[in-house]
């Protein structure tokens, strides 16, 4: 309970900062901070595997991807960003409030897996091999669907890269 009390305000603050900062680089780094603090939260409740995977995927891949795309693009005007803020705030609230409602509803109502019979120690003692087994037997359709989605995304990204490459002339070799 104590780690949750310490970490959750920090996570919320970092997430708010990620939304509020005008400079995209600051926002990206604060997002990385929020994600890594979430990983720490997972580690403190004993879900080591999830925590480490969270760190590896979200900090090591997603945050680095965002940061890298910031490096190779031109920074936008900050004043314009701030002027646009009220309208984007309204859009953001419109998008996030329903999600928040669903999450709160399921939290209060309680999901079927989090009943009293599954006490905390059983969850903590879950070995990785068990997670793997469950993922590739009873949850195999979901894994396959995610794999198909990711493949489609990769093909789409490759197509996008192709198109831009064709429209731009490659820089001539200064030889």
């Amino acid at each position, binding site marked *: 309970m104590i780690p949750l009390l310490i970490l959750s305000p920090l996570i919320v603050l970092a997430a708010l900062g990620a939304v509020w900062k005008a400079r995209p680089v600051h926002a990206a780094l604060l997002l990385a901070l929020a994600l890594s603090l979430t990983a720490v939260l997972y580690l403190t409740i004993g879900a080591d595997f999830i925590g480490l995977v969270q760190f*590896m995927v979200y900090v090591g891949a997603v945050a680095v991807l965002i940061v890298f795309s910031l490096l190779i693009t031109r920074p936008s005007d900050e004043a314009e960003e701030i002027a646009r803020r009220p309208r984007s705030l309204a859009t953001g609230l419109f998008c996030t409030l329903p999600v928040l409602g669903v999450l709160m509803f399921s939290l209060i109502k309680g999901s079927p897996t989090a009943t009293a019979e599954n006490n905390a120690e059983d969850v903590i003692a879950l070995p990785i091999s068990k997670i793997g087994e469950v993922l590739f037997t009873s949850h195999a359709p979901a894994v396959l669907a995610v794999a198909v989605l990711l493949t489609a995304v990769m093909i789409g990204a490759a197509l996008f890269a192709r198109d831009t490459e064709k429209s731009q002339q490659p820089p001539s070799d200064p030889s």
Partner: protein
Amino acid sequence: MKVAGAIGLLMISLAENGFAGEDERWFTGMESLPCLPQRAVEMILSNFGMPEWMVSMAGFFVAAFTVVAVFAGGFALLSLVERKTLARIQNRLGPNRVGWFGILQPVADGIKMLTKEDIVPAKAEKLLHLLAPILIVVPAILALGVLPLGREWVPVHMELGLLFFFSVGALTELSVFMAGWASGSKFPMLGAMRAISQMVSYELPLMISALGVIMVSGTLSLPEIVDKQGGFLLGFIPAWNLFTPWGIFAGLIFYVASLAEANRCPFDLPEGESEIVAGHMTEYSGFKYALFFMGEYLGLFAIAGLGVTLFLGGWQAPLPGLGFVPSWIWFFGKLAVIIMTFLWIRGTFPRVRIDQLMRFAWLCLIPMALLTIPAAAIWVFTGKGLLSWVIIIPLMLIPWVIMTLIFNRRLAPATRTYTFADS
């Protein structure tokens, strides 16, 4: 002398706990010598009646301190050894003024770095500029913490050690970005871009070649992976992962990828001195610059130590009958050999170009690394005997040769002509 002898005796008698079945008291004392500070602090604290969690917490602090002290000392030593070795390769003398044969050169370097002016560029982001060198040392030390450095010497025993190693390594990329972006200048930016793209590309073959080891050992815990590599084949060949048909290839790929991951020559583009000054460290001076170097060398130790753990049997002795030597000596000996080959390569090969670097990772290393996964599966399911050698060697070699031929003929970049140099 007497005091030193008494302290030594005290240490050996303290070190006896946790050891059974071995007769040679001296060697058992040597074996757990590195763990001694931790054990001693724990013993003293529990004698004073401290609560359990406080005792183990203090023990962890002391263990962490031991690791940092050992590898920081290794960093100082390596900086001297590297300069000396490179100098000998290039037919120079190297540092030879400070102390006996230049042995005190690291101390002089340290004093120089500490007393230099700490310059922060006017255009820099102050906070990020300060944070970057700190955050580059932290993941390296964290990664060193899970390596089994000896039979009794595992600073933090984690069930998911390998995953932990790779996931803290992700922080390095972010701190390199912070260094490059916060400096507010062109060279660090370009250097950071190169460094991040190189790290992301070479992390893939690194992890994929480690997958085979995980499949064969069936665990992510590094001490257990080392335990599984104990024993000898035919009485004298150590049962390391390197001496299996898939392990040779996976080990080679891991070695090349770790060269790139540690930013060593021939893949040292992120700080290619002759091209982009010093990459992401251009705008740093004084102790922050030293911290970058420290992070780099600690990362080198960590990645080479992981290679030793995964493929070279960690602390296992290389020949039967050598088990009496303390296991951490074997670990550090293997680490020294690997790092010496790194230095040798640095003194021998020229730096590759950025397009060659990317091409090599994505078109050559990653497909070859993917092939080691079915090879490891075959090794497990055909009984780890002669039959698996017969199946796996052609399976690995034929695509390897075809890939090399294609890579050399079609995909190799066109030879450059240098107008001013040729005419």
